[in-house]
């Protein structure tokens, strides 16, 4: 075993293994990386509103969400539904006393 072969086996093979592992570790993170939310970061995305699917096909959910700033459809300014009693603003139905909770982190 001459010097070149020794170098190839004892230096080249470990380096090759290290290179393969480094590629496996760092390449998937490099492409298509979405910045992960960390507490304290500002939130620069547009507001999004998610609602559940209607239960029995499209007709069961009369789900015209008047979502403010939904990133797909935007705000429906002064949207009128047929059953709104002459309201000039968006349909707001009184939901009675509201409950709920609040939390910070």
């Amino acid at each position, binding site marked *: 075993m001459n010097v070149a072969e020794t170098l190839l086996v004892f230096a080249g093979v470990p380096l090759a293994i290290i290179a393969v592992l480094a590629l496996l570790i760092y390449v998937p993170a490099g492409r298509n990386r*979405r910045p*992960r*939310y*960390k*507490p*304290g*970061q*500002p*939130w*620069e*995305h*547009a*507001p*999004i*509103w*998610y*609602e*559940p*699917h209607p*239960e029995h096909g499209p007709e069961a*959910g*009369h*789900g*015209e*969400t*008047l*979502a*403010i*700033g*939904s*990133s*797909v*459809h935007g705000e429906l300014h002064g949207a009128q539904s047929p059953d709104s009693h002459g309201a000039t603003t*968006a*349909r*707001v*139905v*009184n*939901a*009675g*006393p*509201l*409950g*709920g*909770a*609040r*939390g*910070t*982190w």
Partner: protein
Amino acid sequence: MNMTIEHDSAIDGTYDPRADSVVEQHVDRVFSYQELARLDEALTMSSRETGLRFTLYIGDLGTPSRVRAEELHARSGGNPAEGVLIAVSPGQRVVEVVTGAAASRRLPDRACALAVLSMTGSFAGGDLVGGIVNGLRQLSDQAGHPSGHRRH
């Protein structure tokens, strides 16, 4: 219409990205498709099991965040009395749960506070989607099935 329907069609392959490139740009910018699918399933299944209407808002809530959240709840579509809104403002680090009058009989404020506590625990660790999914699970477990549709 809602965003989640478009997410679904994007996931199951019936969605043509060239048909609406604006939507395509926006859909997975905040969350990945897997995360969106988890959110979608959690929202739909908890709404279906409980008969309440769970909606989720992620975005800025302004300074009196409670007032803003209640305003959003009133506009959340469907019957607001049976609506439950989870409003998350990651920039302000605030989460608000708003329940309508009928929903708050099945989801007392104490149960909401417990769900909020588990959500804030996940949010503080940077896991928005996991926290929301767990909070929805707790809320729907607490609310149970609607009395008319009890399964045997």
